[in-house]
């Protein structure tokens, strides 16, 4: 194939809450892939944690019918993202190419306006040079494909854009198009229950498109009109069984 067609993906994610066990493997996987620093006991408890994805655990009902509800929440990669217009320097911008929200760390000046305006609390701020405090040689495992963030910049889930880029690059070098399932973010890759499905929403046959069309599908805070790219499949025993 001499000239490849420029294809444009629309990346999306589906989280099946009926399958999610709440085990937090996605949290750890994300941290290890994306060079997310840990912040220690005191800071983590004071809302300085750097999770790009976190599992919200809420309770439903009263004992003995009390039941935990787990919901992994990450950046929803909104189609109309509230974070984007408020950044004074275009550090968080919409990628027309990938249809996701980008956070350009080296452009960020740290107004934290985007984080205030994010209804999903999906953003984390580097209050200190956390990553630089990692004692050697533990910094050896830092992923060279992901920028190490310095203090004073905002960061958030990128749908593992480095993997998207690598996948596209690999496919292009081989002269083919991306296959469904070829690019998956670290959370979906690790998820032991396979509750996170990732793929191209513009391909109606992709696994994620099929899952997103499920009747159980809902998006978070739909009333805000943010057009999230993440669909949650509601769980619970009210159907089937």
């Amino acid at each position: 194939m001499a000239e490849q067609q420029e294809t444009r993906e629309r990346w999306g994610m589906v989280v099946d809450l009926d399958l999610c066990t709440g085990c937090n493997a996605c949290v750890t996987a994300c941290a290890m892939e994306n060079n997310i620093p840990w912040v220690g006991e005191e800071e983590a408890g004071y809302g300085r944690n750097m999770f790009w994805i976190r599992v919200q655990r809420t309770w439903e009902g009263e004992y003995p019918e009390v039941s935990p509800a787990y919901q992994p929440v990450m950046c929803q990669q909104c189609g109309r993202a509230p974070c984007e217009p408020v950044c004074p320097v275009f550090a968080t911008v919409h990628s027309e190419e990938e249809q996701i929200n980008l956070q350009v760390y080296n452009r960020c000046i740290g107004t934290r306006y985007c984080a205030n305006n994010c209804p999903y609390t999906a953003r984390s701020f580097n209050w200190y040079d956390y990553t630089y405090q990692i004692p050697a040689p533990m910094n050896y495992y830092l992923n060279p494909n992901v920028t190490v963030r310095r203090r004073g910049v905002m960061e958030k889930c990128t749908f593992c854009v480095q993997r998207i880029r690598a996948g596209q690059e690999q496919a292009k070098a081989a002269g083919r198009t991306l296959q469904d399932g070829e690019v998956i973010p670290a959370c979906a890759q690790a998820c032991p229950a396979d509750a996170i499905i990732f793929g191209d929403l513009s391909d109606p046959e992709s696994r994620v498109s099929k899952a997103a069309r499920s009747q159980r599908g809902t998006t978070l805070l739909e009333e805000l009109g943010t057009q999230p790219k993440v669909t949650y499949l509601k769980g619970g025993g009210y159907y089937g069984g």
Partner: protein
Amino acid sequence: MKKTLPWWLRPWVRVTAGLIVLILLGGAVGGIYLTQTVPQQPIQFPHNFHVGAGIPCLYCHPGAQWGPVAGLPSTQKCWGCHQQVAKTKTSPELQKLVAYVEKGEGIPWVPVFIQPEFVHFNHRPHVAAGVACETCHGDMKKVTVAQPIPRQNMGWCLSCHAKQAPEKWTRLSDCSLCHY
């Protein structure tokens, strides 16, 4: 009435102000200069000679055709040719190479064309798109050790990307093309 100059016209004020301006300017120039100096290489590698001898760039920097990093040659790669070259025995500069070979060590080259860690550059698409090496790296026929090209900044990247086909601009101007 005593004839006095207003304070801003007094010589010492002007001299001091001039000095401050000079120091600031000098600092800025010096700082910029420091980022653009040619680093000290372990071997004064003559690019001009090798290019002149007809060796393609990709012979020593093969990574450029398939991946992000062009790569710097391993000791064995140099030795592959140089063990057959008579001059290896005589040239003092090449004795350093011999020493590395004997010690079985890699040569600690200092890369010249490097991007900050928040820029993810990939050679392959550029080579595939037919961008010649000298477009970005300068004419290696004219230098011995590689020299940095000043002002290779974001605008410099974009100025070339902007010249591509308009339908590619969305992709080529996407922030996540380089920054993630």
